[in-house]
């Protein structure tokens, strides 16, 4: 009869239910509806998509609760929302709003330069970005129940997401190849807790779901990330900064499901109109990159 809420299994379990799916950034209930109709498995409610944050500058914060509530009312799929790194009160507010997942996100302006949110203190689960395995394990040690690559949000350039996914997968293979007595030095190198490092070395995989994010703009981008080992895909600016969001959203979902079927990806990629224009990551100065936020 007892109901134990906010358990680790329940937190990471929801991410497992999202696997193989596409989570889309939306800023209005209308966009949320388009995303749901296209087959998105969840939406991320936010005030501005990363491309606009990049273009307009200013401090990027948690979305207006009014917007979040209206998006929750518009769809039946889970609604996620972003909190600033270290801003545990924004997270408390999002929990009070009963969002289904909180993204402690580098896309927003960090609120703390040293501490991430203590995610064990919440019943609502958290997803966090990473550039490598060490960063993923540090977030797990703080209670994150889902991981995503950082990529370079709002760029429309997939290169960073590829780099981060390959790095994580490569480090997982490396860790698995080590002798037990080498794991202490590995933990030091990864700057991650020894116990987690030992567990991951034994299983050869992260104990939570790992999505790709940051720069996905086309169906082929999504399938690329899936073939590289992602459990699913976040699409931020890529949908609603394109010429035909509804068609592109549907195509990205289809390419994510059938990521090993090139003929199908070819078919769904036809006639989608212009993708988001984007910025080459190589042209973005180091100081303006979002992926370097968080540690």
């Amino acid at each position, binding site marked *: 009869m007892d*109901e134990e809420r906010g358990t680790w*299994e329940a937190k990471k*379990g929801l991410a*497992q239910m999202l696997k193989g799916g596409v989570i889309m950034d939306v800023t209005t209930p209308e966009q949320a509806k388009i995303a749901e109709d296209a087959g998105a*498995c969840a939406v991320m409610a936010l005030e501005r998509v990363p491309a606009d944050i990049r273009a307009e500058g200013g401090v990027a914060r948690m979305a207006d609760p009014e917007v979040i509530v209206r998006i929750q009312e518009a769809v*039946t799929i889970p609604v996620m929302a972003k909190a600033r790194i270290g801003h545990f009160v924004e997270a408390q507010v999002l929990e009070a709003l*009963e969002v289904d*997942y909180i993204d402690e996100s580098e896309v927003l302006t960090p609120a703390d330069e040293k501490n991430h949110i203590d995610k064990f203190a919440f019943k609502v*689960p958290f997803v966090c970005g990473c550039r490598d395995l060490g960063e993923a394990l540090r977030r797990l040690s703080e209670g994150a129940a889902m991981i995503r690559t950082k990529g370079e949000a709002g760029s429309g350039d997939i290169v960073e997401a590829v780099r981060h996914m390959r790095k994580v997968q490569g480090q997982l293979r490396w860790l698995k190849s080590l002798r037990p007595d080498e794991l202490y030095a590995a933990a030091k190198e990864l700057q991650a807790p020894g116990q987690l490092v030992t567990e991951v070395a034994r299983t050869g995989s992260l104990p939570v779901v790992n999505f790709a994010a940051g720069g996905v703009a086309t169906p082929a981008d999504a399938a690329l990330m899936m073939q590289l080992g992602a459990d699913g895909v976040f699409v931020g600016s890529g949908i609603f900064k394109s010429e035909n969001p509804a068609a592109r959203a549907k195509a990205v979902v289809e390419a994510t499901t059938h990521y090993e079927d090139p003929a199908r990806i070819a078919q769904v990629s036809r006639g989608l109109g212009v993708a988001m224009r984007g910025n080459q990551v190589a042209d973005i100065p180091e100081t303006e990159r979002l992926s370097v936020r968080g540690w």
Partner: protein
Amino acid sequence: MKIGVLALQGAFREHEEVLGRLGIRTVEVRKPDDLHGCDGLVLPGGETTTQRKLAKTYGLWDPLARLGGRGMPILATCAGLILLATRIDGEAGSSLGLLDIDIRRNAYGRQVFSFETSLSVGRTAETAGRADPFRAIFIRAPRIVRTGPAVSVLASHAGEPVAVEQGNILGLTFHPELTPDPRFHTHFLEIVRRAAASREEGKPGRDSMETAVGNHP
């Protein structure tokens, strides 16, 4: 024996892992052709709205309805169970209608109300030779608000059914694929074996299963 696991979205790999540990061959079902030669199907948890949409878009909806109608054994968890119900949130017509229950989606609330609990699963427990409580994880789970006369209840939580069986269909509102306890999967495999045995005796056969899959563009 080969079990097809609907792999449009959700926790399909977890079901494959449990069945794999029980020595069962699985195939991921993403298009109608994948259904050929399956002795049973798993409809996993995930997002109902998404799964329904994709099943229709990818031409799987009608084959699933036909196969279920002809007695194909099905294990359905959470979102998968919702797809089988007669009525969802009071409405008919948006589901496969293979299991005579009415169901309410996300009926415990949003994710912060997701929970774990221990279930008494007496009969199922006996068949698999394990001690009672089954640790069950409910994630944005639905509630079964009506069961038809042909439906038997295997387990309840707070006085409401959470595990039900009707013919060759086993439906659960929770996620046995997320815990190491394989009792419900074992029970499902018994249903599959029983169905296969009755086919051998000349009841609705494999041939009719094959025609139910049909040819789709």
